[in-house]
């Protein structure tokens, strides 16, 4: 029963003395939030669905004409949009896989008794506390072929990280990995410290090798929390805009959100961009759903 979830108000409290019942307090907290959500989330969502079936352009006075599924048809037939999706998928896979590998690896290294562990962990968390735009600007300088420190340190001469069409996407993903691996590391650390010590002791007694211990004990027990990290990072990576937009403007790094931004706010094709936004929304929902299903399965084991 839903109502039993709400704890009854303490009769001696000040709120009760003012004549507020627990129901009215609940309403006081929930109704503004719900209203806020409806006004700023739900309403625009439905409104833009309507626009996605029109040829509306916010920059002109021309009335919006109903065009049915024309926008969706055009978008799904546009080879550029498909290439944007392909680029986004490639970016998500590289970036999330990289973060998982680096983040989990660092967490494994940190998951032992070492001096200054707390300080080390805090320092490692710094990248994800910076703003995306600032990271983008920093890395643009770091990657610079003429005076960038990366080429200098690696002795790559004038290697063009961001102007090489083939390399640019990897360069953006690398920056994203640098920035968000700490997030995966943090979640993994929490997962790792929750693995019961006696399991390792038992494994040691049975003379299990380190690989066996890792794949049979550590990984299965940390998997659910790793899955959560993957869900978060996939959703974020799918939406990446600022980092790629600031670092480079190669056609090979035009992620779907950049395409959407250009369509909506540079070309002012409002109707069509609403349709594209819906296509993206449906894709993100679908991917997240698959993950959540899988997560539940992992948890059941």
């Amino acid at each position: 029963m839903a109502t039993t979830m709400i704890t009854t108000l303490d009769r001696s409290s000040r709120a009760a003395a003012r004549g507020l019942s627990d129901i009215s307090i609940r309403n006081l907290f929930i109704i503004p939030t719900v209203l806020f959500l409806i006004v700023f989330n739900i309403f625009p969502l439905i409104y833009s669905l309507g626009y996605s079936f029109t040829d509306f352009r916010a920059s002109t006075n021309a009335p919006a004409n109903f065009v049915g599924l024309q926008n969706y048809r055009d978008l799904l037939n546009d080879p550029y949009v498909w290439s944007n999706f392909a680029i986004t998928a490639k970016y998500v896979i590289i970036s999330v896989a990289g973060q998982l590998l680096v983040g989990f690896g660092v967490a494994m290294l940190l998951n032992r008794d070492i001096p200054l562990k707390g300080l080390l962990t805090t320092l490692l968390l710094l990248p994800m506390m910076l703003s995306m735009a600032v990271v983008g600007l920093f890395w643009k300088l770091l990657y610079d072929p003429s005076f960038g420190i990366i080429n200098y340190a690696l002795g790559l001469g004038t290697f063009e990280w961001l102007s090489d069409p083939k390399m640019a996407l990897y360069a953006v993903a690398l920056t994203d990995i640098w920035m968000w691996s700490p997030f995966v590391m943090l979640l993994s650390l929490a997962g790792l410290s929750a693995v019961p010590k006696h399991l390792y002791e038992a494994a040691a007694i049975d003379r299990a090798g380190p690989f066996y211990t890792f794949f049979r004990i550590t990984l299965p027990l940390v998997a659910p929390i790793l899955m959560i990290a993957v869900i978060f990072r996939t959703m974020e990576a799918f939406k990446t805009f600022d980092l790629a937009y600031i670092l480079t403007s190669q056609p090979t790094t035009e992620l779907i959100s950049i395409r959407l931004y250009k369509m909506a706010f540079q070309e002012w094709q409002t109707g069509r961009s609403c349709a594209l936004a819906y296509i993206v929304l449906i894709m993100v929902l679908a991917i997240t759903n698959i993950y959540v299903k899988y997560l539940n399965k992992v948890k059941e084991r």
Partner: protein
Amino acid sequence: MRKLVTSVLAGIGLTLACGTSVYAQEKSLTIFWAEWDPANYLQELGNEYEKETGVKITVETTPWSDFQTKAFTEFNAHGDAYDMVVGDSQWLGAGSTGGHYVDLTDFFNKHKLGEVMAPATVKYYAEYPGGSSKYWAIPLEGDAVGWSYRKDWFEDPKEKEAFKAKYGYDLDVPKDFKALRDIAEFFYRPDQKRYGIAIYTDNSYDAMAMGFENALFSYGGELGDYSTYKVDGFINSDKAVAALDAYKELYKFTPPGWAKSFFVEDNQAITENLAAMSMNYFAFFPSLINEASNPNAKNTGFFANPPGPGGDQFAALGGQGISIVSYSQKQEEATKFLEWFIKDETQKKWAALGGYTCSAAVLKSPEFQNATPYNKAFYETMFKVKDFWAVPEYAELLQQLNQRVYPYMIGGEGTAKETLDALAADWNATFKKYGRGQ
């Protein structure tokens, strides 16, 4: 509960009070422009206006990259945050047909601005549709793409000798596109960290288009027919194909990492000793003769965009006109400011502050032409400029140009002919979509 209601009401009251107090200061005007030096000069000019009339002028700026987005977001919301906007020449179509700009045709005719301002500036900064004699802006900042170069590199006797030996003619300011290419090749020395030329390649707004136009127009090519919207046989003509090839050829001699460069990078090419020649808008040249911002200021020279093989000489137009926003509450006050702005003495002051006046009389005056090392090149250029499409859907046309030309220029995909044929097809489809032409 009553207390809550009272405090909410008090809050609303306070907000309203603050709101009305803004309206009380009627003697102020806000002009919206991009963040660059000319906007600072305009602010200084505005300060003079305040001294004379007591009307406060505020020039509000935003970085170039979101100038268009921010301005149109405000227009589309019918906001009155800006009384006037110094909009890009391509915005005329969207601004006028969208109802965002006040029709200034009467103002224009009353003050005979068609004669006062240089013809190209009237055609491209003020009139829409082309040839309609309807005006939506007053030419404010004239601008076009020109070139800066390293005089010390060009005048070095050893270099001159080596150049003559290799190419058979004297090293000097390029007389045509072929010379431009040869000099770029000559100075391209990656082992010395010296490169030939800096050009526009950024594909996020109009940089790539402006750079390519410089070659296209001088090669005698056209983007299309501005009155019939016919593009086939124009943008993919043999001349246009040759122009694109010539522009791509120049990319070979640029500094490393030159795939997202616009005005900032191109000025850096001169200040950081990277390139022998650099393409840029004249509006960015003042900082090149300033020793504080350019250590090579004394050794920097300027020239107009050279002619192509057929002898045609044109340049891509930048620059902006000032328009009154139709949602402004202070249109009368704004009109008064414009009346003051077009006066001859104001135009002279504007030029002296560093603004690029469009007044034909001031442009022609020897004092203007001798004021800086680049004013003469500017004067010459302003009478042979051409611009991009100014239709409301220009941003889509730009995007299509970027989408087609960039992969060819930077990635080397396909051929120039294929690129421009595809672009012509894209543009045809777009014009058809908006019911333009036949």
